[in-house]
């Protein structure tokens, strides 16, 4: 068993300093001279001193021996010996550090965060690195990122560790493990270290190919936080705002929830949270204009995590839903005319209306070019599906449908008679549709009857049979289907409900096409973004909770607030065991990971001690060594 070693064996040449040390000692070029009356007695004394006691030789050269001992201790310290710890035997060691929101939780009032504790322990590992050992720092929250490659450069590792900050997002271990696995293909390793509070799903879909040392950090203190914030349009106008507050397992007590609209407090409520329970409350606002809401939670006692105490919600302006249905689809127009809160085009007066629509239902392919957030094609095959779906007229029946799809809720399609027969082309299958982003909602005998495709800013439904050539318009489920389509359009247009933005990625922002903007984060950093052809800015990273401002030439164009809103992060629930594929389980390590123990500090202390002894007995103490 290897108990230890030297980190800087190349410094062994320092032992050659023994030669000049001994040489200079015996030369004693600057020995103080003292004239005395006679050397008679001293000669006899010294002769007796040397001859009669063999050990006197040792004592006579004690100063030299102490100096040699001092030099040996210094050389040994320069060799940087160490006592082998646990992971020191691994040449390469990836270290995964959890930086999710829960890692920002404090252990006690005025205490340290989980991430600070993890950084402290990783720093100890870096300090105790052996010369041939390489560490790789990987941080992860919802996505992983590599801080350093495998390196033994301690300064680089420390700098990377210092820059590590908490991201206000939920953690996802799987991508981090996949990144580590990918690194292992080019630079193999046997074991990886994971520093986390265990706040991630207990089951990870990952084939673990290396040993994982799960170093679970000590639990944080009690925490209360907002885990949901949303608004639904109220029946009589205005909005119902829902706020949900949850707490960690050991959190209980009182708190205040306040709701601010455009900076003004419009409501507040005192709540009491019991252990393991959540509180849900509803506030009402009568506004019909676009406004910004902020919910603020203020616990009375200690709250370990501050990032989940605020949530932000943007309410859209209230307006009727703009729906376009050609007059050729009379069944749809009939169903829509009885619904409140929508404007149906073309109107009976023949006004075609201009501008965009929120919902387009048409059996004319050219109507797909209309600007709309939700489009429903009826009775024809969209161009991108024509390679895989062929029309037919032999009739078809419904084999199965996705009953859980929102658009088909409460719609009974059994025994539906369809005269059209859309069928898969030769060698085509459902997989080809999935590759295009379509999801089949209704399966017919020979092919799909309804498919859905959701893009970043648009929702498309493709009814591959014409409803007028089926029994659908005569069934009770038809108006329900139309109602579901309207509801989907309302949601797509953001008119029915609004949800608070979550950290991770900013929601898509509609701005000027090809416009160049800067996004200012809560940490006051600036990121340049460019809008696409439709003026959509998407994919902007939002790792911190708070307001993100979209600037154009320094002037603010939009402001979007995002919050943590993660029940798992707020409850600070930590798993003690992770289950991987094939029932492989990794439990949290029972002991703190042992690092190599450097021996050079005690050696230096010993050298200092020898120096003090030498000084005391040869300089300070009268009478010298006894």
């Amino acid at each position, binding site marked *: 068993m290897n108990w230890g070693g030297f980190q800087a064996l190349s410094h062994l040449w320092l032992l050659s300093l023994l030669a000049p040390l001994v040489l200079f000692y015996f030369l004693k070029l600057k020995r103080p001279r003292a004239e*005395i009356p006679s050397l008679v007695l001293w000669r006899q004394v010294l002769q007796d001193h040397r001859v009669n006691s063999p050990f006197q030789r040792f004592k*006579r050269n004690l100063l030299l021996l102490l100096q040699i001992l001092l030099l040996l201790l210094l050389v040994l310290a320069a060799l940087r010996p160490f006592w082998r710890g646990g992971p020191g035997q691994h040449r390469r060691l990836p270290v995964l550090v959890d930086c999710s929101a829960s890692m920002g939780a404090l252990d006690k009032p005025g205490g340290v965060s989980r991430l600070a504790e993890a950084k402290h322990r990783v720093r100890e590992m870096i300090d105790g690195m052996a010369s041939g050992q390489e560490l790789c720092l990987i941080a992860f929250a919802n996505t992983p990122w590599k801080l350093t490659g495998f390196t033994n450069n301690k300064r680089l590792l420390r700098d990377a560790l210092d820059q590590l900050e908490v991201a206000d997002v939920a953690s996802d271990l799987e991508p981090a493990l996949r990144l580590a696995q990918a690194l292992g293909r080019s630079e193999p390793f046997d074991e990886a270290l994971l520093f986390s509070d265990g706040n991630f799903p207990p089951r990870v879909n990952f084939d673990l190919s290396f040993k994982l040392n799960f170093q679970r950090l000590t639990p944080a203190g009690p925490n209360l936080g907002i885990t949901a914030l949303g608004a639904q349009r109220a029946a009589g106008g205005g909005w119902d705002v829902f706020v949900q507050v949850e707490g960690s397992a050991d959190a209980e007590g009182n708190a205040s929830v306040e709701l601010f609209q455009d900076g003004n407090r419009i409501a507040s409520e005192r709540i009491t949270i019991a252990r393991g329970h959540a509180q849900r409350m509803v506030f009402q606002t009568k506004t019909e204009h676009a406004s910004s809401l902020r919910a603020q939670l203020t616990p009375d006692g200690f709250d370990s995590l501050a990032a989940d105490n605020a949530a932000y919600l943007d309410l859209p302006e209230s307006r009727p839903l703009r729906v376009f249905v050609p007059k050729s689809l009379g069944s749809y127009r009939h169903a829509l005319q009885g619904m409140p809160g929508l404007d149906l085009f073309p109107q009976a007066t023949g006004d075609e209306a201009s501008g965009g629509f929120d919902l387009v239902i048409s059996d004319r392919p050219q109507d797909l070019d209309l600007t709309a957030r939700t489009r429903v094609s009826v009775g024809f095959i969209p161009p991108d599906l024509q390679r895989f779906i062929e029309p037919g007229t032999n009739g078809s029946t419904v084999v199965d449908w996705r009953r859980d799809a929102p658009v088909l809720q409460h719609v009974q399609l059994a025994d539906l008679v369809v005269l059209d027969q859309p069928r898969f082309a030769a060698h085509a299958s459902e997989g080809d549709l999935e590759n295009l982003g379509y999801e089949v909602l209704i399966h017919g005998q020979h092919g799909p009857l309804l498919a859905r495709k959701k893009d970043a800013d648009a929702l498309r439904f493709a009814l591959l049979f014409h409803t007028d050539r089926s029994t659908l318009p005569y069934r009770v489920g038809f108006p329900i289907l139309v109602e579901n389509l309207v509801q989907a359009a309302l949601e797509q247009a953001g008119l029915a409900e609004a949800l608070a933005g979550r950290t991770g990625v900013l929601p898509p922002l509609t701005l000027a096409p090809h416009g160049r903007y800067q996004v200012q984060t809560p940490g006051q950093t600036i990121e340049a973004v460019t809008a696409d052809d439709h003026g959509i800015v998407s994919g902007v990273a939002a790792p911190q909770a708070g307001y993100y401002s979209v600037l154009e030439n320094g002037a603010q164009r939009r402001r979007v607030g995002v919050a943590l809103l993660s029940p798992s992060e707020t409850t600070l629930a930590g798993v003690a065991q992770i289950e991987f594929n094939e029932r492989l389980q990794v439990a949290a390590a029972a002991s703190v990971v042992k690092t190599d123990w450097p021996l050079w500090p005690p050696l230096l202390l010993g050298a200092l001690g020898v120096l003090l002894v030498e000084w005391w007995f040869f300089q300070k103490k009268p009478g*010298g060594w006894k």
Partner: protein
Amino acid sequence: MPPLAPRPQMTTLLTNGVLDRLERLRIRPAGRRTSRSRGEHLSGKGGTSTEFCDYRDYTPGDDTRFVDWNIFARLHRPYLKQFHKEEERHIVLLVDASASMKFEDKLNLAKPLAAAFGVMGLLNNERVSAYASHQANDAPDRLPPCRGRASLRMLFQFLESVEGRGDAPLDRAVELLLRHHRGRGVCVIVSDFLTFGDLKRGFNLLHAAGLEPFGIQILSPREIEPDVSSDWRLVDSETQETLDISSSADLLNLYQEYRQGLEDELALLCRRRQGRFLPVSSATPVESVLFDQLRRRGWIE
């Protein structure tokens, strides 16, 4: 009545007060060693002094002037009257004036001590001679034997002029001294006895010459309790030889053992030759040595 003028100092070596006290003292040798020449000391043998000693039978050839005729008239048998013989005693002063005696007033104590013994000798009608040894091969500086109060100034001038130099070993100094000296008595040796020579030989020579060795060893305080710390290169003041030492308690203890051993050896050498020995520190006042230590030890009376 005008005050009396202070009496001028006779010498820088001893104060007038000390000289007054010395006038009432005399050297008390352990043995009875005198010269044949007439002097003030009884020889132990029959002599021609005025002090009656004993009677003995007349034998043919005796000097008839010493026949006691009164007894012859009464007893009709001749008896010869015997008288004490008074011989003179030599006081030889040997002052070690080598370079080692210059340290810490050792020579400044040796010269007054030698002067004191000389004063006591002269005032008691002894024959006093003085020697100061310097170089090993050179004859010592010498004050020829002299006697009487009139020789005091000569003695003082001689001793005052003695300076420390040279590297004369003591046995060599004794050897050179005996080339000039004749007569029995006492030889007062004032030295540190830190010599590379053979001490025993010197004492044997003195004993053979009829001189009782009175050894006074003067060591400086730093020789008695050396204050040596750390590493030093010691230089011999006489030979300029060097010796490197590293201070340690054992070394100092050993030094003390050797110093005490030297004292014991010197005392033994003196005692076996009917002499006396006294170690003193150069820091001791001369009055204390003369009137305290020497008197208590019976050197003088």
